[in-house]
Protein backbone atom coordinates (compact mmCIF):
# COMPACT_ATOMS: atom_id res chain seq x y z
CA UNK A 1 0.00 0.00 0.00
CA UNK A 2 1.52 3.29 -1.06
CA UNK A 3 1.72 5.82 1.70
CA UNK A 4 1.36 9.40 0.58
CA UNK A 5 4.02 11.99 1.30
CA UNK A 6 3.05 13.77 4.54
CA UNK A 7 1.89 17.37 4.14
CA UNK A 8 4.89 18.70 5.97
CA UNK A 9 7.20 17.37 3.25
CA UNK A 10 5.50 19.02 0.31
CA UNK A 11 7.54 21.81 -1.26
CA UNK A 12 6.96 24.33 -4.00
CA UNK A 13 8.18 24.04 -7.56
CA UNK A 14 11.23 26.21 -8.21
CA UNK A 15 10.46 29.26 -10.39
CA UNK A 16 11.47 32.87 -10.71
CA UNK A 17 14.24 35.15 -11.82
CA UNK A 18 16.77 34.16 -9.16
CA UNK A 19 16.33 30.49 -9.90
CA UNK A 20 16.77 31.09 -13.62
CA UNK A 21 19.82 33.28 -13.09
CA UNK A 22 21.61 30.78 -10.88
CA UNK A 23 20.81 28.00 -13.30
CA UNK A 24 22.22 29.89 -16.26
CA UNK A 25 25.33 30.94 -14.31
CA UNK A 26 26.00 27.32 -13.44
CA UNK A 27 25.35 25.87 -16.86
CA UNK A 28 27.39 28.60 -18.50
CA UNK A 29 30.37 27.57 -16.41
CA UNK A 30 29.62 23.85 -16.61
CA UNK A 31 29.25 23.63 -12.85
CA UNK A 32 27.09 21.15 -10.98
CA UNK A 33 25.09 21.37 -7.82
CA UNK A 34 24.14 18.73 -5.31
CA UNK A 35 20.78 20.51 -5.23
CA UNK A 36 19.99 19.25 -8.70
CA UNK A 37 21.90 15.98 -8.79
CA UNK A 38 20.57 14.73 -5.45
CA UNK A 39 17.11 16.24 -6.02
CA UNK A 40 16.95 18.35 -2.90
CA UNK A 41 13.39 19.36 -2.01
CA UNK A 42 14.58 22.77 -0.88
CA UNK A 43 15.90 23.85 -4.26
CA UNK A 44 13.06 26.30 -4.85
CA UNK A 45 13.58 27.87 -1.46
CA UNK A 46 17.36 28.28 -1.64
CA UNK A 47 17.71 29.16 -5.31
CA UNK A 48 14.72 31.45 -5.16
CA UNK A 49 16.25 33.65 -2.54
CA UNK A 50 13.66 36.16 -1.59
CA UNK A 51 13.07 39.57 -0.19
CA UNK A 52 15.36 39.20 2.78
CA UNK A 53 17.82 36.58 1.70
CA UNK A 54 20.24 36.05 -1.12
CA UNK A 55 19.73 33.15 -3.45
CA UNK A 56 22.29 30.40 -2.89
CA UNK A 57 23.23 27.01 -4.25
CA UNK A 58 25.60 24.31 -3.05
CA UNK A 59 28.09 23.69 -5.80
CA UNK A 60 29.24 20.12 -6.19
CA UNK A 61 32.84 19.90 -7.27
CA UNK A 62 34.63 17.32 -9.39
CA UNK A 63 31.80 16.55 -11.75
CA UNK A 64 28.42 14.93 -11.36
CA UNK A 65 29.56 11.32 -11.35
CA UNK A 66 30.41 9.73 -8.03
CA UNK A 67 32.43 6.56 -7.64
CA UNK A 68 30.14 5.33 -4.89
CA UNK A 69 26.65 3.95 -4.89
CA UNK A 70 24.90 4.79 -1.65
CA UNK A 71 21.32 3.57 -1.43
CA UNK A 72 19.86 6.95 -0.54
CA UNK A 73 21.57 9.11 -3.13
CA UNK A 74 20.57 9.79 -6.71
CA UNK A 75 23.85 11.32 -7.84
CA UNK A 76 25.05 9.31 -10.84
CA UNK A 77 27.52 6.58 -10.10
CA UNK A 78 30.42 5.61 -12.33
CA UNK A 79 33.56 3.56 -11.86
CA UNK A 80 35.31 5.95 -14.26
CA UNK A 81 33.98 9.49 -13.94
CA UNK A 82 35.19 12.17 -16.34
CA UNK A 83 38.62 13.64 -15.52
CA UNK A 84 38.73 16.71 -13.30
CA UNK A 85 38.34 20.10 -14.93
CA UNK A 86 41.48 21.97 -13.91
CA UNK A 87 39.64 25.26 -14.50
CA UNK A 88 36.91 24.39 -12.08
CA UNK A 89 38.45 26.04 -8.98
CA UNK A 90 38.71 29.34 -10.83
CA UNK A 91 35.23 29.07 -12.31
CA UNK A 92 33.70 28.32 -8.93
CA UNK A 93 35.46 31.26 -7.33
CA UNK A 94 34.15 33.55 -10.09
CA UNK A 95 30.59 32.25 -9.93
CA UNK A 96 30.28 32.47 -6.17
CA UNK A 97 31.84 35.90 -5.83
CA UNK A 98 29.23 37.11 -8.34
CA UNK A 99 26.32 35.90 -6.25
CA UNK A 100 26.89 38.37 -3.44
CA UNK A 101 26.72 35.81 -0.66
CA UNK A 102 27.94 36.04 2.91
CA UNK A 103 28.09 32.29 3.38
CA UNK A 104 28.51 29.47 0.90
CA UNK A 105 28.67 25.70 1.06
CA UNK A 106 30.79 23.62 -1.29
CA UNK A 107 30.56 19.89 -1.64
CA UNK A 108 31.82 17.21 -4.00
CA UNK A 109 31.25 13.74 -5.30
CA UNK A 110 33.50 10.94 -4.08
CA UNK A 111 36.42 10.34 -6.41
CA UNK A 112 37.96 7.07 -5.33
CA UNK A 113 39.50 6.87 -8.80
CA UNK A 114 41.86 9.77 -8.07
CA UNK A 115 44.93 9.07 -5.89
CA UNK A 116 44.32 11.99 -3.53
CA UNK A 117 40.55 11.62 -3.72
CA UNK A 118 40.37 15.07 -5.27
CA UNK A 119 41.50 16.73 -2.03
CA UNK A 120 43.99 19.06 -3.72
CA UNK A 121 41.36 20.15 -6.26
CA UNK A 122 38.94 20.83 -3.41
CA UNK A 123 41.56 22.70 -1.38
CA UNK A 124 42.58 24.81 -4.38
CA UNK A 125 38.96 25.81 -4.95
CA UNK A 126 38.68 27.02 -1.37
CA UNK A 127 41.96 28.94 -1.54
CA UNK A 128 40.96 30.69 -4.76
CA UNK A 129 37.53 31.53 -3.43
CA UNK A 130 38.96 32.98 -0.24
CA UNK A 131 41.41 35.01 -2.28
CA UNK A 132 38.72 36.40 -4.55
CA UNK A 133 36.13 36.96 -1.83
CA UNK A 134 37.77 36.93 1.60
CA UNK A 135 34.60 38.13 3.32
CA UNK A 136 32.60 35.02 2.41
CA UNK A 137 32.36 32.32 5.07
CA UNK A 138 33.03 28.96 3.47
CA UNK A 139 31.68 25.63 4.62
CA UNK A 140 32.79 22.41 2.91
CA UNK A 141 31.06 19.08 2.96
CA UNK A 142 33.58 16.42 2.03
CA UNK A 143 33.63 12.68 1.61
CA UNK A 144 35.81 10.43 3.70
CA UNK A 145 38.76 10.22 1.26
CA UNK A 146 38.76 6.53 2.11
CA UNK A 147 40.05 7.41 5.55
CA UNK A 148 43.23 9.02 4.19
CA UNK A 149 43.84 11.66 6.82
CA UNK A 150 46.47 13.49 4.74
CA UNK A 151 43.74 14.24 2.24
CA UNK A 152 41.46 15.41 5.04
CA UNK A 153 44.24 17.68 6.31
CA UNK A 154 44.77 19.15 2.87
CA UNK A 155 41.21 20.40 2.79
CA UNK A 156 41.16 21.36 6.47
CA UNK A 157 44.19 23.59 5.99
CA UNK A 158 42.90 25.37 2.90
CA UNK A 159 41.32 28.31 4.70
CA UNK A 160 37.70 27.21 5.07
CA UNK A 161 35.57 28.13 8.07
CA UNK A 162 33.38 25.10 8.65
CA UNK A 163 34.33 21.50 7.87
CA UNK A 164 31.40 19.15 7.39
CA UNK A 165 31.37 15.41 6.82
CA UNK A 166 28.20 13.37 7.19
CA UNK A 167 27.80 10.19 9.18
CA UNK A 168 24.44 9.92 7.31
CA UNK A 169 22.91 7.32 9.64
CA UNK A 170 23.44 5.37 12.86
CA UNK A 171 26.26 2.90 13.25
CA UNK A 172 24.23 -0.30 12.85
CA UNK A 173 22.59 0.81 9.61
CA UNK A 174 25.69 2.20 7.96
CA UNK A 175 26.55 -1.04 6.09
CA UNK A 176 22.98 -1.21 4.76
CA UNK A 177 22.58 2.43 3.79
CA UNK A 178 25.95 3.77 2.71
CA UNK A 179 28.33 2.54 0.04
CA UNK A 180 30.47 -0.37 1.22
CA UNK A 181 33.58 1.80 1.28
CA UNK A 182 32.14 4.09 3.92
CA UNK A 183 32.03 3.19 7.60
CA UNK A 184 30.68 4.92 10.67
CA UNK A 185 33.99 4.85 12.50
CA UNK A 186 35.93 6.05 9.45
CA UNK A 187 33.66 9.05 9.19
CA UNK A 188 34.14 9.83 12.86
CA UNK A 189 37.90 9.63 12.32
CA UNK A 190 37.67 12.24 9.57
CA UNK A 191 35.85 14.68 11.84
CA UNK A 192 38.11 13.94 14.76
CA UNK A 193 41.22 14.54 12.69
CA UNK A 194 39.99 17.92 11.46
CA UNK A 195 39.51 19.08 15.04
CA UNK A 196 42.90 17.71 16.01
CA UNK A 197 44.93 19.49 13.36
CA UNK A 198 42.93 22.69 13.27
CA UNK A 199 41.03 23.19 16.54
CA UNK A 200 39.75 26.60 15.43
CA UNK A 201 37.71 25.01 12.64
CA UNK A 202 34.03 24.39 13.29
CA UNK A 203 33.11 20.78 12.48
CA UNK A 204 29.69 19.58 11.47
CA UNK A 205 27.86 16.40 10.61
CA UNK A 206 24.41 15.27 9.50
CA UNK A 207 22.04 12.38 10.08
CA UNK A 208 19.09 11.20 7.99
CA UNK A 209 16.14 9.89 9.96
CA UNK A 210 13.52 7.49 8.75
CA UNK A 211 15.70 4.65 7.48
CA UNK A 212 14.93 2.22 10.28
CA UNK A 213 16.99 3.59 13.14
CA UNK A 214 15.92 3.43 16.81
CA UNK A 215 15.89 6.43 19.12
CA UNK A 216 18.69 4.96 21.19
CA UNK A 217 20.85 4.56 18.11
CA UNK A 218 20.32 8.19 17.15
CA UNK A 219 21.15 9.30 20.67
CA UNK A 220 24.33 7.21 20.61
CA UNK A 221 25.34 8.65 17.24
CA UNK A 222 24.88 12.19 18.49
CA UNK A 223 26.91 11.40 21.58
CA UNK A 224 29.70 9.97 19.44
CA UNK A 225 29.78 13.26 17.54
CA UNK A 226 29.94 15.25 20.75
CA UNK A 227 32.74 13.01 22.01
CA UNK A 228 34.94 14.11 19.10
CA UNK A 229 33.86 17.72 19.62
CA UNK A 230 31.73 18.12 16.54
CA UNK A 231 29.97 21.43 17.06
CA UNK A 232 27.10 21.40 14.59
CA UNK A 233 24.65 18.67 13.72
CA UNK A 234 21.71 18.57 11.35
CA UNK A 235 18.90 16.02 11.23
CA UNK A 236 16.49 15.65 8.34
CA UNK A 237 14.00 13.19 6.87
CA UNK A 238 15.27 10.70 4.32
CA UNK A 239 13.23 11.12 1.17
CA UNK A 240 13.46 8.50 -1.55
CA UNK A 241 14.89 10.32 -4.57
CA UNK A 242 13.77 7.76 -7.18
CA UNK A 243 12.15 4.36 -7.33
CA UNK A 244 15.62 2.88 -7.73
CA UNK A 245 16.61 3.89 -4.24
CA UNK A 246 15.79 2.51 -0.86
CA UNK A 247 12.33 2.88 0.54
CA UNK A 248 11.52 5.24 3.35
CA UNK A 249 11.07 3.28 6.55
CA UNK A 250 9.29 6.00 8.48
CA UNK A 251 8.18 9.58 8.07
CA UNK A 252 9.33 11.13 11.32
CA UNK A 253 6.98 13.83 12.60
CA UNK A 254 7.94 17.50 12.95
CA UNK A 255 7.32 17.11 16.68
CA UNK A 256 9.88 14.34 16.86
CA UNK A 257 12.38 16.49 15.01
CA UNK A 258 11.76 19.19 17.63
CA UNK A 259 12.61 16.62 20.26
CA UNK A 260 15.94 15.88 18.56
CA UNK A 261 16.68 19.59 18.40
CA UNK A 262 16.28 19.74 22.13
CA UNK A 263 18.50 16.66 22.54
CA UNK A 264 21.18 18.32 20.45
CA UNK A 265 20.99 21.51 22.47
CA UNK A 266 21.14 19.55 25.73
CA UNK A 267 24.15 17.57 24.51
CA UNK A 268 25.95 20.84 23.96
CA UNK A 269 26.14 21.26 20.20
CA UNK A 270 26.80 24.84 19.09
CA UNK A 271 23.83 24.44 16.83
CA UNK A 272 21.39 21.67 16.04
CA UNK A 273 19.23 22.09 12.97
CA UNK A 274 16.46 19.53 13.03
CA UNK A 275 13.38 19.26 10.83
CA UNK A 276 11.95 17.09 8.07
CA UNK A 277 13.35 19.25 5.28
CA UNK A 278 16.58 20.19 6.99
CA UNK A 279 19.65 19.24 5.03
CA UNK A 280 23.34 19.63 5.74
CA UNK A 281 23.63 22.96 3.96
CA UNK A 282 20.06 24.20 4.27
CA UNK A 283 20.18 27.72 5.70
CA UNK A 284 23.61 26.74 6.94
CA UNK A 285 24.76 30.34 6.94
CA UNK A 286 21.77 31.57 8.87
CA UNK A 287 21.96 28.83 11.49
CA UNK A 288 25.68 29.22 11.91
CA UNK A 289 25.82 32.97 12.02
CA UNK A 290 22.87 33.28 14.36
CA UNK A 291 24.25 30.67 16.76
CA UNK A 292 27.69 32.28 16.79
CA UNK A 293 26.02 35.62 17.44
CA UNK A 294 23.98 34.17 20.28
CA UNK A 295 27.09 32.67 21.82
CA UNK A 296 28.97 35.96 21.55
CA UNK A 297 26.07 37.82 23.11
CA UNK A 298 26.09 35.37 26.00
CA UNK A 299 29.81 35.80 26.48
CA UNK A 300 29.53 39.56 26.39
CA UNK A 301 26.43 39.53 28.58
CA UNK A 302 24.63 41.48 25.89
CA UNK A 303 20.85 40.95 25.73
CA UNK A 304 20.09 42.49 22.38
CA UNK A 305 21.80 44.11 19.46
CA UNK A 306 23.90 42.51 16.80
CA UNK A 307 27.52 41.80 17.63
CA UNK A 308 30.04 42.04 14.81
CA UNK A 309 30.75 38.58 13.40
CA UNK A 310 33.75 39.40 11.25
CA UNK A 311 37.06 39.90 13.00
Amino acid at each position, binding site marked *: *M*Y*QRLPEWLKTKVPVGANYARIKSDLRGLNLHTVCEEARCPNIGDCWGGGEHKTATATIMLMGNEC*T*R*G*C*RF*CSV*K*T*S*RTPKPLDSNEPEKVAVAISKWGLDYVVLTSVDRDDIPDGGSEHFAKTIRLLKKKAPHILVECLTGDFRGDLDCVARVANSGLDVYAHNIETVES*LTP*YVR*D*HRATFRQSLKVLEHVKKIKPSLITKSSIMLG*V*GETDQEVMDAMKELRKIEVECVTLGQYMRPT*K*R*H*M*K*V*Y*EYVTPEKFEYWKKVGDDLGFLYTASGPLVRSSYKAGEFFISSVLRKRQQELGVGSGIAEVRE
Partner: protein
Amino acid sequence: MVSPNNHYTTKSEGVTINFITPEGDKKTIIANKGESIMDISHTHDDIELECACEGSLACSTCHVIVDPEYYKKLEEPTDEENDMLDLAFGLTETSRLGCQIVMEKDLDGITVTLPSATRNVQLKGSKLS
Protein backbone atom coordinates in the same frame (compact mmCIF):
# COMPACT_ATOMS: atom_id res chain seq x y z
CA MET B 1 -0.08 -11.88 -15.07
CA VAL B 2 1.13 -10.00 -18.12
CA SER B 3 2.55 -6.53 -17.60
CA PRO B 4 0.75 -3.68 -19.33
CA ASN B 5 4.03 -2.14 -20.44
CA ASN B 6 4.80 -4.53 -23.29
CA HIS B 7 5.93 -2.73 -26.38
CA TYR B 8 6.68 -5.39 -28.95
CA THR B 9 4.45 -6.70 -31.71
CA THR B 10 4.94 -10.46 -31.85
CA LYS B 11 5.34 -12.90 -28.98
CA SER B 12 8.44 -14.43 -30.56
CA GLU B 13 10.37 -11.19 -29.91
CA GLY B 14 9.63 -11.28 -26.22
CA VAL B 15 11.15 -13.42 -23.53
CA THR B 16 9.36 -14.46 -20.38
CA ILE B 17 10.78 -13.77 -16.95
CA ASN B 18 9.21 -14.64 -13.63
CA PHE B 19 9.85 -12.58 -10.56
CA ILE B 20 9.23 -13.84 -7.04
CA THR B 21 8.81 -10.85 -4.76
CA PRO B 22 10.09 -10.76 -1.18
CA GLU B 23 6.47 -11.34 -0.10
CA GLY B 24 6.35 -14.53 -2.16
CA ASP B 25 4.16 -13.29 -5.00
CA LYS B 26 4.94 -14.44 -8.51
CA LYS B 27 4.84 -11.92 -11.34
CA THR B 28 5.36 -12.92 -14.94
CA ILE B 29 6.68 -10.31 -17.33
CA ILE B 30 7.26 -10.51 -21.04
CA ALA B 31 10.42 -8.56 -21.60
CA ASN B 32 12.41 -7.57 -24.65
CA LYS B 33 15.63 -9.27 -25.60
CA GLY B 34 18.58 -7.13 -24.62
CA GLU B 35 16.89 -5.74 -21.51
CA SER B 36 18.68 -6.33 -18.24
CA ILE B 37 16.76 -7.28 -15.13
CA MET B 38 17.49 -3.78 -13.89
CA ASP B 39 15.92 -2.31 -17.07
CA ILE B 40 12.87 -4.51 -16.67
CA SER B 41 12.31 -3.40 -13.10
CA HIS B 42 12.44 0.23 -14.21
CA THR B 43 9.71 -0.17 -16.78
CA HIS B 44 7.48 -2.24 -14.54
CA ASP B 45 6.18 -0.47 -11.46
CA ASP B 46 5.22 -3.69 -9.74
CA ILE B 47 8.80 -4.98 -9.73
CA GLU B 48 10.68 -3.24 -6.93
CA LEU B 49 14.40 -3.57 -7.46
CA GLU B 50 16.81 -1.01 -6.17
CA CYS B 51 19.79 -0.13 -8.28
CA ALA B 52 21.57 2.54 -6.34
CA CYS B 53 24.55 2.71 -8.69
CA GLU B 54 22.50 2.31 -11.88
CA GLY B 55 24.46 -0.65 -13.14
CA SER B 56 27.98 0.62 -12.66
CA LEU B 57 29.02 -2.25 -10.38
CA ALA B 58 29.50 -0.06 -7.34
CA CYS B 59 26.80 -1.62 -5.15
CA SER B 60 24.86 -4.83 -4.60
CA THR B 61 21.34 -3.51 -4.29
CA CYS B 62 20.05 -5.20 -7.47
CA HIS B 63 20.97 -8.61 -6.10
CA VAL B 64 18.64 -11.38 -7.31
CA ILE B 65 18.58 -15.14 -6.77
CA VAL B 66 18.38 -17.06 -10.02
CA ASP B 67 16.73 -20.47 -10.28
CA PRO B 68 19.48 -23.10 -10.50
CA GLU B 69 18.50 -24.38 -13.93
CA TYR B 70 18.92 -20.94 -15.53
CA TYR B 71 21.87 -19.92 -13.39
CA LYS B 72 23.96 -22.41 -15.37
CA LYS B 73 23.03 -20.69 -18.64
CA LEU B 74 24.32 -17.30 -17.56
CA GLU B 75 27.76 -16.09 -18.54
CA GLU B 76 30.32 -16.15 -15.74
CA PRO B 77 30.29 -12.98 -13.65
CA THR B 78 33.23 -10.61 -14.08
CA ASP B 79 35.61 -9.96 -11.19
CA GLU B 80 33.95 -6.59 -10.68
CA GLU B 81 30.53 -8.20 -10.35
CA ASN B 82 31.87 -10.82 -7.97
CA ASP B 83 33.43 -8.14 -5.78
CA MET B 84 30.05 -6.45 -5.39
CA LEU B 85 28.13 -9.71 -5.13
CA ASP B 86 30.29 -10.66 -2.16
CA LEU B 87 28.76 -7.74 -0.30
CA ALA B 88 25.15 -8.67 -1.00
CA PHE B 89 22.97 -9.60 1.93
CA GLY B 90 21.54 -13.07 1.85
CA LEU B 91 24.02 -14.21 -0.77
CA THR B 92 23.32 -17.65 -2.26
CA GLU B 93 25.10 -19.94 -4.67
CA THR B 94 22.88 -18.80 -7.51
CA SER B 95 22.99 -15.09 -6.75
CA ARG B 96 23.73 -12.54 -9.44
CA LEU B 97 23.44 -8.79 -9.85
CA GLY B 98 20.30 -7.92 -11.78
CA CYS B 99 22.03 -5.20 -13.77
CA GLN B 100 24.34 -7.80 -15.30
CA ILE B 101 21.73 -10.30 -16.44
CA VAL B 102 20.61 -9.47 -19.96
CA MET B 103 17.56 -11.24 -21.29
CA GLU B 104 18.15 -13.43 -24.36
CA LYS B 105 16.24 -16.25 -26.03
CA ASP B 106 17.96 -18.91 -23.98
CA LEU B 107 16.79 -17.26 -20.77
CA ASP B 108 13.14 -17.49 -21.77
CA GLY B 109 11.18 -18.72 -18.74
CA ILE B 110 13.81 -17.76 -16.16
CA THR B 111 12.68 -17.22 -12.58
CA VAL B 112 14.47 -14.80 -10.28
CA THR B 113 13.72 -14.19 -6.62
CA LEU B 114 14.05 -10.73 -5.15
CA PRO B 115 15.65 -11.20 -1.76
CA SER B 116 14.11 -9.63 1.31
CA ALA B 117 17.58 -9.40 2.81
CA THR B 118 18.08 -5.62 2.77
CA ARG B 119 16.98 -4.47 6.15
CA ASN B 120 14.08 -2.05 5.77
CA VAL B 121 11.71 -3.40 3.17
CA GLN B 122 8.35 -2.29 4.44
CA LEU B 123 7.22 1.24 5.14
CA LYS B 124 6.31 1.48 8.81
CA GLY B 125 2.57 1.61 9.23
CA SER B 126 1.68 0.50 5.73
CA LYS B 127 -0.17 -2.68 4.80
CA LEU B 128 1.87 -5.58 3.48
CA SER B 129 0.93 -5.72 -0.21
